[in-house]
């Protein structure tokens, strides 16, 4: 399987198949992230399309200096917030969290609902770093690069987010003794 860098070189030479491979590799990640920001399927699909249109516009001559997720994250974030403010100007992150799908079983429903409730009271920047770490599986350095903040700030935000979850009786079970 070609690396991102190899695919980008091929796309720079005008290879549509290499672009399709990149698209397939990051489509779901971009879509999930967009959905996380917008909380709306149609908006998320619009973000997906605009993100890859933006990426396409970078070719030829595109050079990747960090990981692809680090490059795409701020793009998806910016487009999502723009589309969200255009389509639903008064929607807050908390409302988006409230629109999260209902879990399947009663037991998981309970734990995930409680997790969602605790997440809802986290400051936006702490929740964002937490999700980047545990949903997007990004390293601390990748998070710092994507958000353009010092790595110390990333550690600090993550620390406070985890402390809040750890000390809340609804989410303390997520932590091993």
């Amino acid at each position, binding site marked *: 399987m070609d690396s991102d860098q190899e695919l980008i070189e091929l796309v720079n030479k005008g290879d549509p198949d290499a*672009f399709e491979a990149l698209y397939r590799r990051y489509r779901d990640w971009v*879509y999930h992230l967009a959905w996380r920001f917008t909380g709306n399927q149609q908006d998320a*699909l619009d973000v997906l399309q605009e993100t*890859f249109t933006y990426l396409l516009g970078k070719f030829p001559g595109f050079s990747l200096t960090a990981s692809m997720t680090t490059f795409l994250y701020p793009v998806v974030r910016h487009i999502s917030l723009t589309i969200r403010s255009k389509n639903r100007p008064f929607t807050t992150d908390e409302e988006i969290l409230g629109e999260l*799908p209902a879990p399947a079983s009663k037991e998981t429903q309970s734990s995930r609902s409680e*997790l969602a409730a605790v997440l809802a009271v986290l400051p936006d920047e702490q929740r964002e770093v937490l*999700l980047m770490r545990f949903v997007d599986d990004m390293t601390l350095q990748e998070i710092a690069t994507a958000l353009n903040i010092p790595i110390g700030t990333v550690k600090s*935000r993550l620390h406070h987010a985890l402390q809040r979850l750890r000390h809340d009786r609804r989410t303390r079970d*997520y932590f091993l003794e």
Partner: protein
Amino acid sequence: MTEKKGHFDEDLDLRISPKLSADLNTLFKPQFSVPSELDRAIMDQANRRLVQRHWRHRVFRHISIWRIAAAAAVIIFAFSLNLTQKPGPTTTSSFIVEAQAVDIDRNGRVDILDAFKLARYVESADLTDKNLSPVSSTGQALRKQGWDINGDGLVNRNDVDSVALAAVRLDKNKGVL
């Protein structure tokens, strides 16, 4: 915009149950997947743009190559014209002819001694008329020998000056003979 200093504890990260990540992923997973129509739309767009840009890039590159080639051809042509116009070998032969004309003592070199020799002849030849008359026998003899350097029909001090000048000039040019 100061944040409370707290360090993200890598050990704490290790003590987090994998369930947290799993639940977060479930919570933030869109209910619907990306429709295949959107995939096709994005790939069609990529195909169009990449092929179009690739051809534009290639055409531009070819035009550039032809431009460079044409410029190089013009330069080479102009240079060759300049070379043919430059009287390279002719210059040498004219120098030889000129040098032979002023090589009074016929020793194969044009130097200040030729000027002295000519000066001596001029001084001793016709004392009444410093300019040796073209009709006088001495004058004719000297002209026959090619000592009328400046070709004015007279052999006089002006010819001595011409020889002296030629001697100096040839000397500066490292000589021809």
